[in-house]
């Protein structure tokens, strides 16, 4: 009785929704760091994307134009990071930090100039789920269908794109020439250069790809879920994505699954609190759950996570 109240289809759907912005960013960051460029700017890129997406959707009336704007703005800021850390060989952590602070300040400032007030924007119409199947009757079959429908078919387009990207990029990283080259850039760029791979170009495209994914993460958060922009609304999700990336050992699919685990812990704690009359545990404990889970899994299950050998090291081409 109690268990079936807690373990509901909606619990898993909630986990996926909570995980998606983190998962998209984790997949993007994995690709970026595989090429040898640290990207701690994911938080800032998501925030920029969230603002641009909402602003354009509000001003143009088209939510999809908003998604496009989110991706473009995020990639524009990502190219700042690429230029600084690849061409100028600046410290990648500092460049990333600068973008995070710049994003917080810029979005706060633009809030005032574009909308005339700080805080939260007006609501936009959020993107509808892809599928809309009717719920079927009663009986055991209907229960099974409710599970399948809610857990697999209740999401918006970017959520599905995230799942697809995680699977596809994991395959591509290990099974394609592109993946081999990308990994070589992060492990030994000199060797890659020697055999004729353009290190700068490879790294640029990886950073831009992470900008693309951060853009979708921001768009998912605002245009598919919350429906408005609030200053600082990413609330550290970009940093949790980096933890998920490490947790997933710099493999896109691994990062995605790690983010899912965070999302599940979060959804579970929101669910468990409702039963505090039966399970008498203070809410602070539940709020702590996702973080405890992270520590336990990192310490006990994952073992040593090894970063790409050349990550964070600027590369200077000879000649």
């Amino acid at each position: 009785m109690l268990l079936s109240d807690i373990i509901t289809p909606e619990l898993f759907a909630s986990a996926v929704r909570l995980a998606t912005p983190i998962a998209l960013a984790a997949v993007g960051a994995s690709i970026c760091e595989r090429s040898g460029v640290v990207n701690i700017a994911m938080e800032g890129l998501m925030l920029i994307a969230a603002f641009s997406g909402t602003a354009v959707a509000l001003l143009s009336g088209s939510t999809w134009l908003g998604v496009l704007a989110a991706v473009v703005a995020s990639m524009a800021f990502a190219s700042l990071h690429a230029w600084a850390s690849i061409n100028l060989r600046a410290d990648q952590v500092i460049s990333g930090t600068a973008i995070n602070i710049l994003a917080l300040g810029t979005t706060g400032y633009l809030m005032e100039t574009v909308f005339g007030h700080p805080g939260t924007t007006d609501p936009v119409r959020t993107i509808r789920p892809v599928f809309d199947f009717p719920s079927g009757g009663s009986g055991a079959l209907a229960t099974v269908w409710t599970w399948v429908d809610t857990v697999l078919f209740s999401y918006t387009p970017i959520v599905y794109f995230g799942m697809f990207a995680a699977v596809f990029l994991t395959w591509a990283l290990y099974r394609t020439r592109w993946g081999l080259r990308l990994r070589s850039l992060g492990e030994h760029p000199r060797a890659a250069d020697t055999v004729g791979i353009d290190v700068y170009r490879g790294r640029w495209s990886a950073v831009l790809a992470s900008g693309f994914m951060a853009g979708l993460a921001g768009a998912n958060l605002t245009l598919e879920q919350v429906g408005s922009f609030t200053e600082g609304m990413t609330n550290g999700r970009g940093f949790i994505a980096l933890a998920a990336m490490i947790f997933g050992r710099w493999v896109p699919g691994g990062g995605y699954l790690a983010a899912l685990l965070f999302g599940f812990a979060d959804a579970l704690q929101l669910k468990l609190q409702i039963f505090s009359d039966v399970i008498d545990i203070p809410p602070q404990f539940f709020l702590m759950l996702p973080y405890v889970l992270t520590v336990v899994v990192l310490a006990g299950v994952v073992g040593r996570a090894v970063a790409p050998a050349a990550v964070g090291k600027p590369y200077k081409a000879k000649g």
Partner: protein
Amino acid sequence: MKSKWSRSLALLLALALIASLSVGCAAPQEPAPQEPAEEKPTTDVKAAMVTDVGGLGDKSFNDMSYAGLQRAESELGVQIEVLESKEPTDYESNINQLANAGFNPIFAVGFLMTDTVIKVAPQFPDVNFGGIDIFFENPTPNVLGLLFKEQEAGYLAGVVAGKLTAMPDVDPRINDKKVVGFVGGMEIPPVQKFEAGFIAGVKSVLPDAEVKSVYTGTFTDQQKGIEAGKSLIEGGADIIFAAAGATGNGTAKACKDNKALFIGVDADQYETIEGIGDTIITSAIKRVDNAVFLTVKDAVDGKLKAGENRVFGLAEDGVGLAPYHDWETKMPADVKAAVDKAIADIKAGTVTVPESK
């Protein structure tokens, strides 16, 4: 060549950093001064406030405190200033900055600033500090705690929710389960008092009702508010009261999308949540603006008495229930009568609302 490039980039990034920091700290641009009112009274009192991390634009107690200051500016001719805090580490520097600039009184908005005010106040013995939602256990002579009986506003919201959840005929969104929900931000006294009052209010009209509570641990994360709301709705709640700042706006959206009803907090959220319509029944309001205005007025009149805690309840017009708006016509007379009776009972002292569960 390359090193010159990187140096200029470093300079550029540093400038960007400074620029964005100053954007973060800057007080919002005052609108162009209106034509000076003819007989505006003048006073040399300069009042200021420091927001908590919710900042201006939270459409909640930061904005309401500011509304109190603005009213003091237009009605009393007081010079006002506001500094926004982006991080908890900004509290102290913002308060120091205002105290050094000669502002008195200075309002610290929010329970989360308690420790900062206790630490900073003794350094400026000539400046009075008003702490919104701050209870001073051993008040120094220059601090004034401005507290609210949130439980009384929560109680009234609870009476409405408890009555309505047992009336499935009134609205299709009300189910036949006697379950209502509460979404809290961080578990701090003002929020706990709203919750305790809400539970007491619900039980006072429907003793066998169940109130399910979820704390999200944040006042700024709408996505968490959405998921908390959905979780409660799945648990059978048809009416949800959220005392969670911007997080609660997410809960309002969850109610709207999933055909449940919502009760707002602090401000009249029918006015502040765009397009909420008849998803919102009412709001448990907290007149922070009144408390700020009255304190500044006392300062202007030279009779500000600090060194104590002042509590604003229903009787002092410090808390209350917002209008029903879209619900005005379909609200059963029985519910309205129960609310009026609760108000009368609380004011008369025949009902004392508990502060904790």
